[in-house]
């Protein structure tokens, strides 16, 4: 049984708006949601509606709003890339992390955090993360490319090998890190939205706009790809080019997400699955709905991460992994039952 896509979209948008308000009004500093929203409007339009002190306004405008935005943008980027990767590999277990983008991007980001002069870190981290993420992905793709197309098996296995390599490289670099760097490294490796910079938000927004548009244009081709590569080719799709474009776009989106927030796992796996269960596998509906759901899921996970142990907070990657890992195991069991593993 399928739900109607417009209905699901409406509910998701409603949920997203409500969660955004919740996220802006939640935190160790107790502020009412009305005042929080008013403070945001004041900031945008130069009004004076909220009954708040300056430091309270600052908490809303400088801390909570950027963080809410980053959570939504990152969640949308990750979920959308997960949906694309699953289609590309024709494997519902695929995730951007699996082909090596996340681990490759992590190496670059760590390199920047440890090596770059302090003043450069804000810019150097996303640039380095994107660059190494892209290089890793291209290396994996080149390894997997054969005369008859790309071997999905080799692509996945190469991703596993590179993830292990990246893990040890990051481990090695943490030996050379200062205590301060080490702390931000470990926090970042667990995935956290604490460092929401305006640079990061702008980059994420641009990346989301561009990839969402490009993915949507290729939605029909992705549907055809689910039939099999030969079948897609017979339908007039240039399969090799399509795969390369999709890999580049995913590397871009995931590289930027990783640079901002570290490795937040399982959003790209769980969200597309749930959306597919609701509205079916057609990418024309799946891709935009996955983006909105990803935004919603990461926003809720981050709000949870902030309220569980106040005034401290849990890295959001731990929350998504706590939800995602059992989900992944359940999927594995289901696939095994179907005899596909």
């Amino acid at each position, binding site marked *: 049984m399928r739900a109607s896509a417009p209905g699901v979209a409406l509910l998701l948008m409603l949920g997203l708006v409500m969660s955004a308000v919740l996220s802006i009004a939640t935190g160790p500093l107790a502020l009412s949601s009305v005042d929080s929203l008013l403070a945001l409007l004041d900031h945008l339009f130069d009004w004076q509606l909220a009954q708040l002190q300056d430091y309270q306004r600052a908490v809303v405008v400088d801390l909570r709003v950027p963080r809410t935005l980053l959570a939504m943008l990152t969640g949308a980027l990750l979920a959308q890339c997960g949906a694309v990767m699953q289609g590309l590999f024709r494997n519902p277990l695929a995730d951007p992390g699996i082909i090596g983008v996340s681990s490759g991007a992590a190496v670059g980001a760590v390199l920047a955090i440890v090596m770059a002069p302090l003043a450069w870190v804000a810019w150097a981290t996303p640039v380095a993360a994107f660059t190494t993420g892209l290089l890793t992905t291209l290396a994996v793709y080149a390894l997997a490319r054969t005369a008859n197309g790309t071997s999905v098996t080799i692509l996945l296995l190469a991703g596993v090998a590179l993830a292990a390599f990246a893990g040890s490289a990051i481990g090695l670099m943490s030996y050379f890190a200062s205590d301060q760097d080490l702390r931000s490294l470990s926090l970042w490796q667990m995935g956290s939205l604490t460092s929401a910079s305006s640079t990061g938000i702008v980059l994420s927004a641009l990346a989301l706009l561009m990839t969402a548009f490009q993915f949507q244009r290729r939605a029909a081709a992705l549907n055809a790809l689910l039939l099999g590569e030969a079948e897609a080719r*017979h*339908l*007039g799709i240039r399969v090799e080019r399509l795969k390369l474009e999709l890999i580049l776009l995913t590397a871009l989106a995931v590289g930027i997400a990783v640079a901002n927030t570290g490795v937040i796992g399982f959003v790209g796996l769980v969200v597309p699955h749930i959306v597919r269960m609701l509205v*079916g596998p057609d990418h024309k509906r799946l891709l935009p709905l996955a983006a909105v759901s990803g935004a919603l899921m990461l926003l809720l996970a981050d709000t949870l991460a902030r309220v569980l142990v106040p005034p401290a907070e849990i890295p959001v990657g731990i929350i998504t992994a706590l939800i995602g890992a059992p989900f992944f195991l359940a999927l594995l069991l289901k696939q095994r039952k179907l005899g*596909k593993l």
Partner: protein
Amino acid sequence: MLRIENLTCEADGKALLSLDTLAVDAGETLAILGPNGAGKSTLLKAICGDCRHRGQVELHGCDRLDWCADRLARHLGVLPQASQLTFPFLAEEVVALGSIPLKLSQRAVREEITRVMALCDCLHLRERSFPTLSGGEKQRVQLARVLLQLSQAEQPPLLLLDEPTSAQDLGHQHHLLTLINTLAEEGYAVISILHDLNHTLHYCKRCLILEAGRPRFEGKPDEVLAPDSIGQVWNYRPTFGWLQDDRLVMA
């Protein structure tokens, strides 16, 4: 409409297929026969460009490589032996994928889907989830998809079928072969890999028997398929008989 010249396919330096010439006209039904590993699937793959090959494959007088992708898709359809699709599309959504290279309105696509699904006797499955269908049902849905893909061809299209009857029950085997002949009457050229020699005798105008990557016999089925030739190729001598309506059968 299809002309093949000096076709050779190799894998790891080993020749899989070598075919000097083959021509198929619009309206023709050609059966490709031969023992396992004779190069039947390789021939089909070479025609549609799925495997690397040397030599020329021309469609309507124009090299396949020179066709633009969408136009080629509207004129060359391939039904694979089995489908790898595991994502839960509905059967009618799978058929709708055939409209990707077409320029049709959504309404026209819906009408065409109903028509081709009825032709392939799978209209009653349209709301079913594709992965839950049986092998034969999946194959009929896929055929409907391919027929939709070819439905807007400006010139007679070429349909390649890889063992189209392998997963079908007796009734659907004959329904499908009759459908192929109807399509051929409309101008389609149909090349199918078949294993059942009786099907070839009754439903195909021509047959090509491959052995070890080379053509061994070619011609009208009732002339080519004789106990001697069959015995040479398959190491099995069938018995022939005639039905009351003078149709040749073998057992």
